[in-house]
């Protein structure tokens, strides 16, 4: 019997950049993004798929990067919070969260941003995101009220433009 394969080469698009790496097959996608690519904006808070902090977009769909292996992302288009905007040029969603004080410690925030971004892209309404999508995330600081306000504010600016 052959020894099990422990390392695999993967090729994927990360925030628009083509990436090729060899990874241990047991490596989580979240670990790969953080440790191999240095994209530390994706945060890991539970590693069992409950809290949503590690949410990223894979082919535009929000997924928990702690529940995927890096090898499963082979051939996909991955987007992380680093792709949304930058300190000097926040995205409209990031700006709305800032204006409405939608974050406190900021640890869960990147995952929430990626879920909202993904769902908004798929045509979800502000109401649906507040009522359903947001409940896929744990935030221990804010009490969620200001995140809801920020989501509505973001949709308002989106509708204007």
């Amino acid at each position: 019997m052959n020894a099990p394969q422990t390392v695999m080469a993967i090729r994927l698009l990360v925030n628009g950049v083509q990436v090729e790496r060899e990874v241990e097959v047991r490596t989580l996608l979240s670990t790969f993004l953080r440790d191999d690519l240095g994209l530390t904006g994706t945060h890991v808070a539970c590693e069992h798929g409950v809290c949503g902090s590690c949410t990223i977009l894979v082919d535009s769909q929000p997924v928990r990067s702690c529940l995927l292996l890096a090898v499963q992302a082979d051939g996909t288009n991955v987007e992380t919070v680093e792709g949304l905007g930058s300190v000097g040029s926040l995205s409209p969603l990031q700006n709305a969260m800032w204006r409405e004080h939608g974050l406190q410690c900021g640890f869960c925030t990147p995952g929430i941003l990626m879920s909202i971004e993904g769902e908004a892209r798929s045509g979800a309404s502000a109401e649906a995101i507040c009522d359903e999508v947001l409940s896929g995330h744990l935030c221990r600081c804010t009490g969620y009220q200001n995140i809801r306000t920020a989501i509505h504010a973001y949709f308002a600016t989106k509708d204007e433009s």
Partner: protein
Amino acid sequence: MTASIDAQRPSLVGSSVRRVNDPRLLTGSGRFVDDISLPGTLHAFILRSTVAHGRLISFEFGESPADLVLGPDDIAASTEPLPFVWIAPDQQHLDLPMGDKTVRYVGQPLGITVARTRAEAEDAAELVEMTIDQFPGVADSLAALEADAPLLYPEHGSNLAVDFNIGDDSDVLEAAMAAAPIIVSRRLRIPRIAPSPMETRGLLAEWNVGTEKLTVWMSTQTPHHVRDQLAHVLRLRTDQVRIISGDVGGGFGAKEHLYPDEVMVCLASIRLGVPVKWVEDRNEHFTATCHARDAVHDARLAMTEDGVFLAIHTKVTGNLGAHFSNVGSGPFRVSGLMLPGPYRVVNAGAKISGVFTNTTPTGAYRGFGMQEAAWVRERLVDEAARELGIDPLELRLRNVISSEELPRLTPTFQEYDSGDYGRSLTMVRDRVREHVPLVDANPRIRRGIGFATHVEFTGLGPSVMQEIVGFRLGGYETAIVRMEPDGSVYVSSGVMGMGQGIETTLAQLAADCLGVDMGRVSVHLGDTAQAPYSAAGSIASRSMTVGGGAVVTAANTLREKILRIAAHRLEASAQDLVITEGRVCIKGDSSAGISLEELAEYSWLGWKLPEGETPDLEVKFVHDPSNISYPYATHAAAVAVDLDTGQIQIERYWVAHDSGVVVNPRIVDGQIAGGVAQGLGIALFEKVLYEENGQPNSTTFLDYLIPLASDVPDMVMDHFETPAPHIPGGMKGVGEGGTIVAPVAIGNAIAAAVPEIAGLILETPLSPGRLWELLRISGLINE
């Protein structure tokens, strides 16, 4: 008040400016501890006990693939015990030995493996053989006091660790109780809570073999305290240890001291001479990080037939866990100290019994003893109202201390400073009257509104008071405010940011006092090599009151110096000068003046200074407040209860709050909303469960539920401001109030909605299952 010195310029204090650190947090460029990597970093895994009580008889790892394995003997030989901080009267244990081979709770750290990656460190841990002789265990505090209970410390003779009274003498109290016409007494319970910040604990330790210095990046609320403790435990000089706390993903009390597993990681770095990182995983967090609460209260409220309160007392049986935490029985003691609340009782006191059990030690968590006190007192008040047939809000108004009676010393030694407690009650009452209750066609949906009120202990605290209560942490804070040679302003403080926005609000205070724009000010926290010494750090809602008060005085003192120097340059009187738009000008004549850049440049050169003035534009001020600050609030909740399922929906929530001067209204609202959400979790979901023998049953977010967005309603908040008379700037603490009051406001609302079960609402969480059981007992559910 920190009134703006320039009438034309709007005050920054009271302004909802956006938080300065949000852009980096929103873009993923924050630096939480796990985001930091140094070349050659190795990763650690902590080996823990999987049994609740026993004796480790072997720890063997043979030819381990790990770079390093340390077991309990090695760890014990290389360390001093970790000193406890808050010591109760007659407390026998004063510190925690590292590497104890008697295991007393699941999760107790026993050793460490270090390897190239976390996964490899876990692989190596799998190969370590630990044999533990199991003993019977006990998890419940009342069970642990029974005669045949297994003893955690047989040499101690009992699991009763500490036993003391606070407040009035027991004979005085018993006489008051005996003379009272009416006594409402209940046994109330507050369950065990896991603080659960979204970022778990973690550290990156780097021992430099050349300089023999240890630098530790750590997620902590108390960098200096951790530094002092770490140096002691590792037998280093304090100046050899530097703690750097960067972005902290929530603390809530769980990260306010040094833990034994953190010592092991530092020890590993010293042994290997390379950086070692360890980040707690969520499963670990549920047993390795201090829990909180877990108290049984046998409480009594005595009153006249007219409902005039006479005395209040509680006997607290508090679960300490397997050993004292750094604060030990402190939370149970604070429950007693704050038991009287805003009411005019003649006598008050508490008997505190702290009990060892085979569970994770209990320590600090948002609300620190006061959430328990509020649950006990405000439930008793509602029960008294029900028995007397008086409206609960009216009963509260009848007994609340009036503003004319402040300051007032309570029987539990709190000198309430300022405010109008009744106003918070009437303010919420009026808000609730505007509310049109929802109507449901379904007769099995019941609705009710509950109230609760409190006074809170914030801004710990005068150092002399800390000495009196045996709490070995200085109660002061120091600020350094400096105008640099280019006119920019550097502010440093020993308090820590962990989501509460303190970086922003300290900048607001400094900018306001100096009369400069916020953009000119930067705030530096968390690095013990830079920040002024802070014994207590960011705990006890003290960052803004004690730390902010220090910044106000330091910045005002610096402003006076700037005006003196400018007066000399402009040949004017300092009283006639203002700072406006980056210039010091003569009032009413903005053409004559000097820019702050020029003034700062020449000052640091030591040129053009008035006689006797030193060239530095830096002020350091140590603020040791003369008293605790006492904010207060009233909350009300409107709930709907489904009699068929036990499901509770919180439909409306109101808060009227006075935390003194509000520096940033949006941040204050955020603190309250987040606090209420945590209180809602306590009310409805959160309870760490153990088997009778000490096996934990709550080790993931699937079996320990914290509130989701769909659980937390939008809230209506009203503020009024009674400045703290003894704090520069007038601020009172605001971080904990939401959590303190919310559970009992919700409990009282459920009691109001379903009066048939009101007398059974004695403990949280009021989960659907628990409520269904109460409804069944009361005959409201036909099976």
